């Protein structure tokens, strides 16, 4: 075991954890600025970048009609990137006492001096201005163990009350703040909350399974009883599925499934891969497919941090971590696919400069527009098709066509003459979001599926179910 740091923690950090004042979780802007300044002040590197992630995460799980585990933790981590010219290295630590910080800063400097030059390295960006985004909600930050247990108890009661069903589910709130600061003058701070909640109801004899779930930032918007009821109803209706042959079917995909498909598409939007000839968006002979229609003309997919309560700067989560040249750049609203036409690809700062265009953020939050109708309307206007609740175990098969394979799960039904006729077996599928959205027939109003995604349910005229899965 390494020596444990038993010295008193940095005063400001203790303040952040123990203070009774404004009851926000994670570092306040003032505390974050003080900690970032402290780290930048310790650094002897030519350029220094700091990312601070702080806050609380808690969870409660239930299964087989009882609460199985629950827990919570608080942490503050600092990722420190030191640079000397085109040499750079990062150290991430949660040891924030004076000696821990000094050790980390010195370590980053040492690593950076040793690292060979990266010719693609750009100087860190200077001061920026950001849109103000409201992403912190007390309704989520205050989901303590008793409140979470009450949600679980209500879901379990709903399942019990409907016969021999067993509920399994998960509620996870997080609350905290993220900061990017650098020696060139960037200071970007964003406090935020997130939650995810899902429930699976299963027949205790294994003959049926139903799922419902959501995610977002403001727990007060969630009607969790309604979600439990939906999962339970789906489990009841899904019992004893009838066999349906694999093949190409008209399919109504619920928002959870659409969110996965669209995510496969957005993560393939790298301009660099396209320019280098190794992407579905490479044009034969060179260049990209920007400006070309790639899916149905009603499909519009865009990113706008303000619309989903996400941090308005790169590097806060997902892509563009502390080490990247892009961290701290403002994220502007960007349309990737506009009425079916490929409008934009993801350009990192480096690749944008090389290609002479403006950099974009990475599409790790997105909204897909829909049409003014409900999921029920999509079903009732379907002559014959398969209704899919959600997908499972999606993996890339061929990046040239964005071909993926995956399975259906927790509620698959045959639709006949506008009505759900009966449950059918699960399937393995092999298909590409480009093909599915190319054969789009209709969409519902978009709904929030995760903290970072909002999509409609869709009906596509062709979806390839390639083999049967006996899983229920």
């Amino acid at each position: 075991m390494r020596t444990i740091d038993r010295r008193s923690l940095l005063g400001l950090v203790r303040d952040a954890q123990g203070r009774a004042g404004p009851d926000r979780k994670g570092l306040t802007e003032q505390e974050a600025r003080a900690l970032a300044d402290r780290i930048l002040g310790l650094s002897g590197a030519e350029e220094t970048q700091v990312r601070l992630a702080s806050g609380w995460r808690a969870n409660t799980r239930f299964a087989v009609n009882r609460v199985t585990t629950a827990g919570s933790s608080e942490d503050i981590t600092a990722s420190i990137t030191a640079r000397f010219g085109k040499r750079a290295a990062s150290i991430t630590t949660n040891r924030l006492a004076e000696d821990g910080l000094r050790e980390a800063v010195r370590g980053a400097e040492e690593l950076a001096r040793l690292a060979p030059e990266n010719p693609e390295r750009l100087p860190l960006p200077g001061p920026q201005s950001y849109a103000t985004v409201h992403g912190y909600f007390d309704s989520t930050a205050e989901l303590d163990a008793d409140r979470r247990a009450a949600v679980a108890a209500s879901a379990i009661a709903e399942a019990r009350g409907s016969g021999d069903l067993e509920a399994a589910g998960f509620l996870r709130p997080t609350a905290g703040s993220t900061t990017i600061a650098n020696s060139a003058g960037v200071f970007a701070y964003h406090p935020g909350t997130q939650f995810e909640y899902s429930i699976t109801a299963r027949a205790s004899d294994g003959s049926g399974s139903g799922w419902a779930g959501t995610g977002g930032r403001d727990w007060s918007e969630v009607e969790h009883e309604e979600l439990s009821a939906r999962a339970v109803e789906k489990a009841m209706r899904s019992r004893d599925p009838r066999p349906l042959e694999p093949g190409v079917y008209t399919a109504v995909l619920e928002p959870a499934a659409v969110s996965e498909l669209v995510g496969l598409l957005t993560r393939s939007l790298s301009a660099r891969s396209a320019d280098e000839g190794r992407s579905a968006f490479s044009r034969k002979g060179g260049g990209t497919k920007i400006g070309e229609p790639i899916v149905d003309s009603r499909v519009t997919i865009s990113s706008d941090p303000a619309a989903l309560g996400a941090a308005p700067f790169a590097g806060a989560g997902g892509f563009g971590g502390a080490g990247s040249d892009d961290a701290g750049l403002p994220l502007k609203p960007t349309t990737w696919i506009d009425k079916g036409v490929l409008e934009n690809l993801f350009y990192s700062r480096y690749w944008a400069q090389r290609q002479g265009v403006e950099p974009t953020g990475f599409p790790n939050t997105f909204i897909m527009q829909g049409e003014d109708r409900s999921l029920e309307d999509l079903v009732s206007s379907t002559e014959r098709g398969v209704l899919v609740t959600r997908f499972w175990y999606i993996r890339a098969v061929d990046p040239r066509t964005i071909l993926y394979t995956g399975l259906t799960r927790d509620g698959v039904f045959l639709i006949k003459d506008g009505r759900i006729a009966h449950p059918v077996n699960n399937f393995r599928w092999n298909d590409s979001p480009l093909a599915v959205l190319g054969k789009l027939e209709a969409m519902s109003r978009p709904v929030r599926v995760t903290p970072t995604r909002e999509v409609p349910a869709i009906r596509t005229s062709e979806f390839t179910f390639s083999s049967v899965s006996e899983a229920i």
Partner: protein
Amino acid sequence: MERRDFVKSSALTAGAIALVGPRLSAAGSAQAGSTTATSMPAPPAVDAATRDLLMEALDAATGAGAGYADARVGLYRNRRIGTRERRVTNVSESDSLGLGVRAFVSGSWGFAATREMSREAAVRAGRKAAAIGAANARVERSLVTLAPVEPYGDVSWSSSYEIDPWDVPIGDKVQYLLDLNEVALGTQGVSFVSSELHFVKIETTSATTEGTIAAQRIIRVNPQMSITAVAPDRSDFQSRGAVLDPAGRGWEYIRDRMTPEAVEVWASEAVQKLSAAAVEPGPYDLVLHPSNLWLTIHESIGHPTELDRALGYEANYAGTSFLAPPSQVIGRTRYGPEFMQIVGERTSEGGLATIGWDEEGVKAQEWPLIENGIFVDYQTTREQVAWISDLTGIQRSHGCSHAQNWSSIPFQRMPNINLLPALEDVTLEDVIGATDRGIYVESRGSYSIDQQRYNFQFGGQVFWEIRGGKKTRMLRDLAYQARTLDFWNAMDMIGGAGTYYVGGSFYDGKGQPGQVNAVSHGCPVARFHQINILNTGRRRAG
């Protein structure tokens, strides 16, 4: 180190192993259940300050009503080095230190963790864990009981490694990758190469109220490389990735396997894939190299034999298991042929899930999951034993409790799970020679399986047609798709110990919130009779 010196020394160390190829080189040192420690570094000792914190946490939890508690202090370190062609894309290091406490209160679990290393914080975490357990116990009175475990007192353990990766200078590691990239780029037709080294060092001390306090050190390495060839007219691109598997070993593992000679082979395979023939879909006899088969074992044997899954505890995420209910399957389900022996273990040298004691103070062990083709036992933790002890006659945990770090709750995770080789000396050439019309697959590719583990589809990296007992031409764009029990019962030939190889992953995922687990799977080459092959190059893969 000067670049010239560096190249010289790496070439020297590479010599011995490169001739037989990197993929088979592990066989000698990685026999299932091998106990010969080539190098066992001094194990860590329990440090007095850490013991003090752990005891405070445990006392606080029991004082607040816990009938049982366990706690761990851990320092988790990761170092990553990434390169692309002739440049460095990433040099990063992270460390995280903290304390986590799990409390068992009236049959329910609570967990709390803190990054503060003080007695006060340890007490707060212990009390909080017990309070969360009590809140859960109010929802439902549960009947969970914990299987007995021996108190081991003060114990310690370390992974076996020759060279601590933290002792190799960053500059040497970066240069090592850049030199290998140069080898790949020197191959006609190769346009891109990326390579990465990921090192893990975990030092934990865990304590239980049953009387075990264990100081342990884990070292793991994960070398990766992907080489891409693009057709001259940009109409096509093909990559060779998944070239090596991670292991619970030190720098020597990389030095011996990730060699210039090996890179030349991988690069030429990437280029050959551009002109390889598209597979004609249909049934073939499938010969799987262990570098491909390990993942199939992981997905279609490892996950279905997790007892919590089988009983519905993972229903909302990872899924359940076709291998249920236990009373219907233990001692009854024929998984595969008579010669199929599957063991679970946390004891093999170099295994990623290998450990001295688990999070509940249960000593690492090896046990059969499938014996003579019949399913006989699951993976268990202390709370799971009573669920099946009437069926197995086993009254103790198999030691599968694991938490990914100090801030995560321990739960049942997969141990190393291995397919034992044939007792006879059957070589890869023997297996191919005995196959008339088949396909030989190396290294893992795309992989997907349903949540009860019935239906799977796996790809690979390199595919060869077998005709009349000989490897003929390279094939591409293919995946094999099967039902788990059909597939394993179609296994009709396995290699001997000489073909044994240990694959594995850093990223076995399970639980909510998701936790990763590192796990190894050893196996020999194996053949499967008449398995369905898909052509994935066609838009609708059929």
